[in-house]
């Protein structure tokens, strides 16, 4: 498999064996040697050789090609979560770079295979993507590029409205409570009378029967739809929006793709950190030759460079893994360690437990970025990596460092990573005001939605739902309802619905 030169194939075999010796566990990995243009193309397609036709891939491609041709950046590694894993090597890279990339790729492959959050992804995605492409092409043949593309655009505009936890939990509507359904449980209030013989006339049985029926109907109407807020808005649309069969098919495919890519957004820091950890372990302990050291170091330094104003997931990830390994090797964790307040003792704390390696393998199995940061980012770590929180200072009109307290850093990081950095949005009502309108709620967590984009997005939602659509959110500290009714988009003040 693959098209490696004998020398690269030899390097690959060696690195694969070393990686396996270290305990990495991966699917078979196929390396393809490609030139920069092909690499840009495949990268634009998200790593897959075949995708459905869409201008967005062309846009990605232009960005990648430009940055490459102006020497701003190049793609070093590209690997896709599939069984077997596929990874790409750029033909023009030097041998040391190729080795580094291979070692890095084996790190990713191990992560894909073993991290819990990837466990529900389709490992035959390569084939599935190709199938999606074929199907969408056939729709294009039947309905025309414009029509299909317009619908794909609308789907993509909504494709962050998924429930990243859905693959793990079976969310089902609770069974309807018996009172709702059982007529004998319905009580109709009667007009009081102290003359029982008059009751038949004051409260005629036919009236009571009719009233009972009315109450039953009202309850049924009140029964919520959906019974519980649904975070998987795409699924809700699939089930209830009046879509043409081909539209439904496209939406279902794009939803699948969104779910496939979601774990990569959820584990960016860990995944990259893990891969860097292993490439550096493999390269520096086993593979590098003397004359390659400088190039290797130069390259790795570039990957791990820190930039003020943003965090480098490679750097944070690998440092955190190393920190965990060190702490578990020395026993720098647990009650005794945390409650110790003797500075000198703390500085030299070492119980020689040697649990580090085992621990990081466990971490790579069950954590995602949010829990990874939450659990393992310590005060010392934040200080060592010079992490800070920045914010906008209206007085100076610029971004400034606000705080270096690790708790604040952690809080801010976690907020950014939660729901892979996307707003938390649910469908709460598919029959709003009893008029079949769609009502979404944005769970407020301190950050506003981009208003103009939100209104545009509502139009795409309307495109699917074909009845007025609304989203409840907060703007400028007040509850707002953004709506689109098919002709006009607008906002109005509301009081936020109960959580």
């Amino acid at each position: 498999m693959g098209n490696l030169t004998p020398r690269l194939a030899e390097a690959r075999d060696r690195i694969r064996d070393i990686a396996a010796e270290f305990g990495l566990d991966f699917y078979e990995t196929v390396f393809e040697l490609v030139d920069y243009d092909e690499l840009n193309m495949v990268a634009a397609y998200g790593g897959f050789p075949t995708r459905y036709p869409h201008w967005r891939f062309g846009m990605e491609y232009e960005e990648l090609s430009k940055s490459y041709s102006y020497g701003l950046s190049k793609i070093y590694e590209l690997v896709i979560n599939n069984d077997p894993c596929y990874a790409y090597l750029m033909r023009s890279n030097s041998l040391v770079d190729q080795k580094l990339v291979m070692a890095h790729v084996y790190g990713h492959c191990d992560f894909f295979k073993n991290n819990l959050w990837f466990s529900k992804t389709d490992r035959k995605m390569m084939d599935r993507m190709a199938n999606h492409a074929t199907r969408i092409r056939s729709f294009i043949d039947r309905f025309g590029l414009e029509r299909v593309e317009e619908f794909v655009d609308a789907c993509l505009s909504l494709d962050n409205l998924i429930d990243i936890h859905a693959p793990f939990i079976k969310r089902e509507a609770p069974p309807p409570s018996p009172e709702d359904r059982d007529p004998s449980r319905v009580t109709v209030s009667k007009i009081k009378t102290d003359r029982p013989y008059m009751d038949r006339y004051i409260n005629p049985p036919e009236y009571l029967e009719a009233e009972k029926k009315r109450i039953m109907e009202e309850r049924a109407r009140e029964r919520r739809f959906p019974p519980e807020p649904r975070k998987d808005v795409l699924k809700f649309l699939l089930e209830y929006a009046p879509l043409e069969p081909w539209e439904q098919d496209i939406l279902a495919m794009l939803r699948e793709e969104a779910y496939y890519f979601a774990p990569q957004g959820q584990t960016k820091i860990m995944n990259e950190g893990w891969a860097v950890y292993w490439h550096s372990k493999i390269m520096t302990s086993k593979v590098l030759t003397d004359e390659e050291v400088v190039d290797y170091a130069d390259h790795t330094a570039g990957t791990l460079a820190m930039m003020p104003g943003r965090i480098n997931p490679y750097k944070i990830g690998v440092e955190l893994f190393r920190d965990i390994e060190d702490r578990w090797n020395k026993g720098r964790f647990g009650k005794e360690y945390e409650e110790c307040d003797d500075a000198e003792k703390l500085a030299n704390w070492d119980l020689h437990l040697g649990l580090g390696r085992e621990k990081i393998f466990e971490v790579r199995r069950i954590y995602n970025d949010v829990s990874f940061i939450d659990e393992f980012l310590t005060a010392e770590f934040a200080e060592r990596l010079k992490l800070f929180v920045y914010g906008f200072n209206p007085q100076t009109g610029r971004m400034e460092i606000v705080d270096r307290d690790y708790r604040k850093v952690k809080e801010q990081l976690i907020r950014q990573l939660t729901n892979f950095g996307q707003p938390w949005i649910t469908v709460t009502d598919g029959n709003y005001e009893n008029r079949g309108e769609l009502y979404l709620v944005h769970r407020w967590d301190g950050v506003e939605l981009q208003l103009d984009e939100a209104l545009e997005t509502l139009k795409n939602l309307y495109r699917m739902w074909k009845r007025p659509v609304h989203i409840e959110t907060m703007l400028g500290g007040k509850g707002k309802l953004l709506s689109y009714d098919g002709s006009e988009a607008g906002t109005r003040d509301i009081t936020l619905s109960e959580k």
Partner: protein
Amino acid sequence: MVKRIEKDHTRFRQIVRGIIKKNLKKYVSQGELIGRKGKHAVSIPLPQVRLPRFRFGDNKGNGVGQGEGEEGSPVDTGEGRQKAGDQPGQHILEVDVELEELAKILGEELELPNIQPKGARLTAAEKGAYTGIAKAGPETLRHFKRTFKEALKRQIAMGLYDPERPVIIPYKEDRRYRSWKRKPTPQASAVVIYMMDVSGSMGKEQKELVRIEAFWIDTWLRHQYRNLEVRYIVHDVEAHMVDEDTFYHLREAGGTKISSAYELCDRLIKAQFPPEEWNIYPFHFSDGDNWSSRDTERCVEILKEDLLPVVNAFCYGQVRSAYGSGQFKKDLDKAFPDEDALITSDIPDREGILASIKDFLGKGR
């Protein structure tokens, strides 16, 4: 191999240019071309189409960064550089490029439409193609079908052809070869006539603006026309033809009589550049102060009667200066509200050069 991505890429470029899917055009964010740091730095525009989504606004406020600094130290988040009011999603990569290379990038990045040449003048340019047939030639160029035909004709003529057993054996004389034929191709030519006001109010900075702008215009037109002639005219109350160096460096004091330049330009065109053979681009730069409104009327007259009918585009760029009133552009716009061939543009400062170039050349005239 035609790459699969090419289709997607073409489609994307068309969206960016507003050719297809106009509904997406509003999501396009544009970058810019000329960098602000030093004279070699440039930012490469990267137009992006951002589909709308429910996403967090730019008032995100806080973030996590890494590096040195006290509390209160400024942080370069990469977004801070853009002033408020910029479009979201603007994506500028800054990079150092030599001016030479810049020239190549210009056309594509500015998305200038290709110019539709007006007149065609036959020049010496010749194009060759394998369209001819010859009796001698290298074996690699042998034309099998023609050779076969010749052999068939000959055999029939000689009575050697047997329909029952149609074997055709070409002789050496039957062989035909593809041959190279030269074809003179018409080549469009263009002349650019730069006119600049060098009166007292045009300072060094104003001339610099003109120089930069003229450089880009040259670059573009040279790209479009193989055969480009450039003429320079400077004027205060009188107009003179000058060479390039003088054009940029001459400084004269005194008043301004724009009509003098327009008259000279007209004479020049009539004498040397017949419009049926030449694509003519007069560019006039001034700070917008004319000597008198009578003279402005005279300018309008020359434009209407003589210049506009023969030129591809007459471009007037008004450089802002501390002394100039900027009246001339208003007068022109008023006199020719619907004239396609007259393009006027305001150049407030260096930043404005780009927009102005686009004004001038964006119409593809």
